[in-house]
């Protein structure tokens, strides 16, 4: 990709900013895109810390947040999202291909880290994104550049299991120390939903017809999963 | 009450006085003080306060007392058992001893000690020991912090309290509380033909006394030993059941005792102009009660409206302001006394 092509997709507000980043990181900048007053820049994993320094040097000094994304699809997770109005469900399942996701500023891997910075002087927002290698979830820490990143990185570590290199104090922030798993990963399923699916899944009209079956939990699960299957097939 | 008074000296008289002064008055002042505290607080805050236990909740204290009797008596691990148990009793002793010398009528005082006021100052600081005992024995960090704060605070305010009283002594020439009341009833303002309540001539002393009493009682703005939002309940944190109630009651009862002493020292005590003899005997207690309520009202008024100081601000206030002011007040009073 040539630089000129990309600069043209960015509004005038950000041309300076992007130029700065390209100057400082050169190969490190992978992609960028702007919408209204926000700019998204995707940088290489290796230039993540450098990107923060660049941003800070050009007055993006307000640290807003830092977090991660898991782009994996997991259908069993959001059980009631499978539920659709009966008329539509068949159609959308069978005929329409699953919609292609438009990632702003793109990305290749399953995990991304993204952060928002803001410039009080220019009143412009900046999102920085980077991809993480799924086998080696390590990334540089921002905690010595933006103090506020400290807690956000702890949270991201806890929720996704990303390791922030250079962070002094990676320990649980929300969950008890004994907690296992990384809740915000898509393959972390909610136990309560596995044991007992969302009651809304079951059509309330069907309930009175099978009064005996609702005695034990086991039968409840069977019943509800049957029902949901039925509604999808019919 | 008249019958007791006219019985004259003798053991019966002594027993009558003892009952009156040791059971009726403390119980009465606890009951009134407690209801007064709750009710006044509620009304200041636009509320009604306790309404269900008895008419307008006047039996709230009885309900609380009986309830606390039924509560388990807990003692934390690692506490010093004997001291932990003794602390509330020491506190209560300090409160009761205050009532000994308060005159409530021309002849109605349990012991008219010659060193009355000196005795009051000494006895009132026994409570510090109780607080330190409670905090130290609780094996709780909040308690210890609270107790040390209380210690630092109460010793800092003991001196202004003493100094504020010296002015009164200079004017009255006696240490006995009964004597001070009489001196006020008969005296005149520096030779002028005005009857002298020491509130007028000793208003600086009164001011210092009131502030120091507030601090001695650990009421807001000086409630750091109990500061709820900082150290939970201070030295009382670990106390449960009836022992807590003892602490709690002696707090309100001490507030009333100190108010009564303040009204004796500065507002003329039981005395009313132009009333002598038996009539004074009868209405004396009520006059004193009214004055006491007035000062208790002031104390609680401050308590419910002001934020609290920080410990260093409190120390600075005592040492840098109240003590010099007290010394100046003594000198001025002495100069007037000598000059006139």
């Amino acid at each position, binding site marked *: 990709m040539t630089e000129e092509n990309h600069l043209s997709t960015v509004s005038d507000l950000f041309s300076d900013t992007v130029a700065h980043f390209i100057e400082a990181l050169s190969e490190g900048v992978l992609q960028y895109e702007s919408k209204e007053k926000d700019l998204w820049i995707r940088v290489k994993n290796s230039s993540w810390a450098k990107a923060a320094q660049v941003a800070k040097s050009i007055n993006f000094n307000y640290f807003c947040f830092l977090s991660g994304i898991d782009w994996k699809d997991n259908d069993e997770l959001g059980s009631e999202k499978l539920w659709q109005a009966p008329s539509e469900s068949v159609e959308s399942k069978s005929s329409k291909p699953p919609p292609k996701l438009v990632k702003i500023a793109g990305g290749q891997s399953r995990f991304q880290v993204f952060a928002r910075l803001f410039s009080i002087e220019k009143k412009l927002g900046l999102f920085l994104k980077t991809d993480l290698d799924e086998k080696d979830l390590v990334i540089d820490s921002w905690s010595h550049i933006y103090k506020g990143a400290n807690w956000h990185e702890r949270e991201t570590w806890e929720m996704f299991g990303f390791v922030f290199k250079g962070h002094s104090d990676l320990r649980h922030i*929300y*969950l*008890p120390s004994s*907690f296992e*798993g990384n*809740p915000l990963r898509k393959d*972390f399923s*909610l*136990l*309560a*939903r596995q044991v007992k699916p*969302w009651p809304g899944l079951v059509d309330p009209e069907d309930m009175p017809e099978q009064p005996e079956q609702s005695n034990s939990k086991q039968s409840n699960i069977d019943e509800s999963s049957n029902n949901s299957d039925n509604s999808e097939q019919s | 009450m008249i019958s007791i008074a006219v019985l004259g000296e003798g053991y019966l008289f002594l027993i009558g006085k003892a009952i009156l002064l040791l059971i009726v008055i403390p119980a009465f002042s606890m009951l009134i003080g407690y209801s007064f505290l*709750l009710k006044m607080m*509620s009304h200041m*805050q*636009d*509320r*009604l*306060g*306790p*309404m*269900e*236990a008895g008419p307008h*909740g006047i*039996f*709230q204290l*009885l*309900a*609380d*007392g*009986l*309830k*606390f*009797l*039924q*509560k*388990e*008596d*807990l003692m934390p691990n690692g506490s010093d058992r004997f001291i932990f148990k003794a602390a509330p009793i020491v506190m209560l002793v300090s409160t009761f001893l205050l009532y000994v010398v308060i005159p409530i009528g021309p002849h109605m005082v349990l012991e008219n000690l010659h060193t009355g006021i000196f005795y009051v100052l000494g006895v009132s600081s026994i409570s510090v020991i109780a607080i330190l005992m409670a905090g130290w024995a609780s094996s709780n960090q909040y308690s210890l912090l609270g107790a040390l704060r209380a210690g630092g605070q109460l010793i800092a305010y003991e001196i202004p309290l003493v100094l504020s009283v010296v002015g009164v002594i200079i004017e009255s020439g006696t240490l006995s509380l009964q004597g001070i009341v009489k001196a006020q009833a008969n005296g005149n303002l520096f030779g002028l033909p005005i009857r002298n309540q020491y509130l007028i001539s000793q208003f600086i002393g009164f001011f210092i006394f009131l502030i120091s009493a507030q601090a001695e009682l650990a009421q807001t703005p000086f409630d750091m030993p109990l500061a*709820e*939002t900082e150290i*939970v*309940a201070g030295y*009382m*944190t*670990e*106390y*449960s*059941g009836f022992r*807590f109630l003892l602490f709690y009651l002696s707090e309100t009862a001490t507030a009333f005792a100190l108010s009564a002493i303040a009204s004796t020292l500065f507002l003329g005590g039981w005395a009313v102009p132009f009333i002598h003899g038996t009539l004074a005997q009868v209405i004396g207690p009520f006059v004193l009660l009214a004055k006491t309520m007035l000062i208790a009202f002031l104390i609680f008024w401050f308590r419910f409206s002001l934020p609290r100081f920080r410990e260093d601000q409190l120390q600075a206030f005592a040492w840098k302001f109240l003590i010099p002011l007290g010394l100046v007040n003594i000198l001025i009073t002495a100069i007037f006394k000598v000059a006139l």
Partner: protein
Amino acid sequence: MALVNKKFFPKPLSHILNNARKYSLWVYQWGLACCAIEMAATFVSPRYDVMRLGVIPFPASPRQADLMIVSGTVTDKMAPSIRRLWEQMPDPKYVISMGSCANSGGPYWDSYSVTKGVDQIIPVDIYVPGCPPRPEALLEAIVLLQKKIATEDVSQRWIQ
């Protein structure tokens, strides 16, 4: 030694003691979530003024409290503390579970970090439904609790 342990309480005495406990419910100020604000409104707002009923929100320490209002979401991280604080209250003690979260997990029924109901860890006397319950509902709960206390058999409750 104690009368309670001998299961001996003459009826009039029991009546008096029950009434004393009924009108003197000290509750310590401790909120967990949204319900805490409605609880505070009940305690503090002159419009509801729970002190009328003898519920006195003075102590900040459980040692002096009779009543614990679990108002809001109980998380797995908080649950041990709740259990401990409940134990640290001297007997006799009462618990009101306020709000859907404390009753059953409420809107967080499927969350990975929320305890589904405080009654899994401590015994609850009165449940108040609602998310959050209005202050009136909490007042009603307190009145119900008072009714419960008034007819309580002391020795039955205290000996397990």
